[in-house]
C-alpha cells in the first residue's frame, strides 16, 4: 500500500516564557492508505500536537513531514489550507459546525472554499448527508439536531471532499455510549469502503476499533502495535 503520511524524526517545541516545552520529540511514523489507526496517550503526551501536525494545522520545528509525497514542513499557510481543504476531513469532539448555518451549508462549506459551483456543491453535500443517514435533515440548524446527528453532519462534511484521510479527535467524547457506538460503527463502515481513518483518543475501548494503535508518552512514540483481532461490530 502506498503511504499517505510519512513522518521522519519530527520534533515540536514551544517557548513558554523563558522555558522551552518539547511537545514532540523525534517522532517517526508511516501511515498507509486504507489504514484504521488510533493515536492514544494521556494528557500532555503530545497527541494533540501530533494531531495538529498530521492535520496540517501546524508545522514541525524540525524533521520531515510528507503528505502524499509532498513536503508539508516547507509549505506556506495557504498551501496548508489547500491540503486541509482537499485531503483531510476533520471530525472533532465539539463537532465544529457553524451554529447559524443549516446542515446543508455546513457540509457544503469545504466545497465553497474549493471553488466548486453551486449545483455540484448541492449534489455532493446531499450525497454525503445521505451516506450518514441525514438526508431528511438538510435544512435543520445544529441546535435542532441531537449530539449524534451533529457528529454525523461533521462526518458528512469530512467526507464531502473525498479526502485522503479522516482525522477524528475524540469523536465520541461528547456523546452517550449508545450514540458513541453508532458513530464508531459508521467509522468502521467508512474504513471498509476504503477510507483512511486516524482516531485520536484516550479511551481504550474507542481505540480498540482501530487496526493499529500508536501510544504516545512525553512526546515520544512509546508503542506502535498492530491489533490483530477485529473488535466489536
Amino acid at each position, binding site marked *: 500500500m502506498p503511504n499517505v503520511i510519512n513522518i521522519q524524526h519530527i520534533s515540536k517545541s514551544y517557548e513558554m516564557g523563558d522555558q522551552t516545552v518539547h511537545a514532540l520529540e523525534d517522532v517517526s511514523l508511516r501511515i498507509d492508505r486504507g489504514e484504521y489507526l488510533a493515536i492514544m496517550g494521556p494528557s500532555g503526551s503530545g497527541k494533540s500536537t501530533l494531531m495538529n501536525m498530521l*492535520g496540517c*494545522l501546524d508545522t514541525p520545528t524540525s524533521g520531515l513531514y510528507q503528505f502524499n509525497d509532498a513536503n508539508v514542513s516547507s509549505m506556506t*499557510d*495557504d498551501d496548508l*489550507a*489547500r*491540503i*486541509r*481543504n*482537499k485531503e*483531510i476531513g*476533520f471530525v*472533532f469532539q465539539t463537532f*465544529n*459546525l*457553524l*451554529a*447559524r448555518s443549516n446542515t446543508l451549508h455546513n457540509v457544503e*462549506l*469545504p466545497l*465553497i*472554499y*474549493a*471553488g466548486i459551483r453551486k449545483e455540484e456543491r448541492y449534489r455532493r453535500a446531499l450525497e454525503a448527508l445521505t451516506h450518514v443517514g441525514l438526508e431528511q435533515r438538510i435544512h435543520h440548524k445544529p441546535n435542532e439536531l441531537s449530539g449524534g446527528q451533529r457528529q454525523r453532519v461533521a462526518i458528512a*462534511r469530512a467526507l464531502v*471532499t473525498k479526502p485522503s484521510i479522516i482525522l477524528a479527535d475524540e469523536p465520541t467524547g461528547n456523546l452517550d455510549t449508545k450514540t458513541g457506538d453508532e458513530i464508531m460503527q459508521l467509522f468502521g463502515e467508512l474504513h471498509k469502503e476504503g477510507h483512511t481513518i486516524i482516531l485520536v483518543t484516550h479511551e481504550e475501548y474507542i481505540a480498540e476499533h482501530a487496526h493499529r494503535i500508536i501510544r504516545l508518552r512525553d512526546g515520544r512514540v512509546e508503542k506502535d502495535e498492530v491489533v490483530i483481532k477485529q473488535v466489536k461490530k
Partner: protein
Amino acid sequence: MNLKYLLKESLNGFQKAQLSVVASIFSIALALVLIGGYIIAQTNLNNLVSTLRNKVELEVFLNNSETEYKLIKTSIINIDGVSSAIFISKKEAADIFKKEFGEDINTVLEFNPLPASFRVTLEREFKESNKTAIIASKIKLIPGVDDVVYRKKLLEFIDSRSKFLTSVSLGVGGMLLLVSFGFVVNTIRLAIAGKRKAIETMRLVGATNSFIRLPFIIEGIFQGIIGSTVALGIIILCFYIFSKFISSEISNIIFLPTTFVTLILGLGIFLGWFGSYFGVRRFLK
C-alpha cells in the same frame, strides 16, 4: 476567490450579530465624535490666535520732517520681516482723528500736533513678541523716527499662552487618538472573538487566511462608514447648537466642511479596517 460569497458573508455579519455590530459602530462613532470635536476646537483656537496676531501692527511716529519720509520708508521696508509700511501724513492723521472723535483737531488746538507716521505690518512668521521687539528696535534706530508703538503686552500674552496651549492640546490630542483607537480595536476584537468558533471551523475545512479575513475586513469597513456618518451627524448637530450660543464676533467659528468630512470618513474607514484586521489576526495562527 468567490466574490459573491465574500460579500454575502460580510453583509451576513450585520444580520447575524446585531448587538456586536451595533457596539462596533457605536465605538467608531464615539471615537470620531471625540476626535472630530477636538479637531474643531483646535482649529478654532488656532484661528482665534492667528486673528489676534494679525491685528498686531507697529505704529512708527516720525519727527516733524515729513520730507524725508520716502527715505525712512525704504529703510523700514528693508528690515527683514517687514511686510508693508503705509505712510500716514500729518493731514491724514488729523482726518483719522476727525473720523474717530468727530472734531477737527486744527479747530480745537489751532494747530495740528499729530505727527506723521507709518503703519507697519509684519510677515506672518515675525508676529511673535521677541521678533517684533527686534524689528521695533531696528526701526527706532532709523533717523527721523521718534517712537515705535505696538501692542507688546497682547503679543507677549498670546505667545506665552499659545505655547502652553499647543503642548497641552498636542498631549490631549495624542491621548485621545490612542484611547479611541484602543477602544475601537478592543470592541471589534471582542465582536470577532464571539465568532472564534466559526473562524476555527473555517480554518479546519481549509479556508485560506485571506478568505477568512476578508469578510471581517469588509464588514469592518462598512461599520467604519456607518460609524463616521453617525459621528458626522452628531458633530454637525452639536456644532450648530453650540454656535447659536456663541456670539459670532468673539468666536468667528469655522467648520472646514470638505476637508473635515473627508478626514472623519477616512478615519472611520481606517478604524474599521484596522480593528477588524488586528481583531481577526490573532485567531488565524
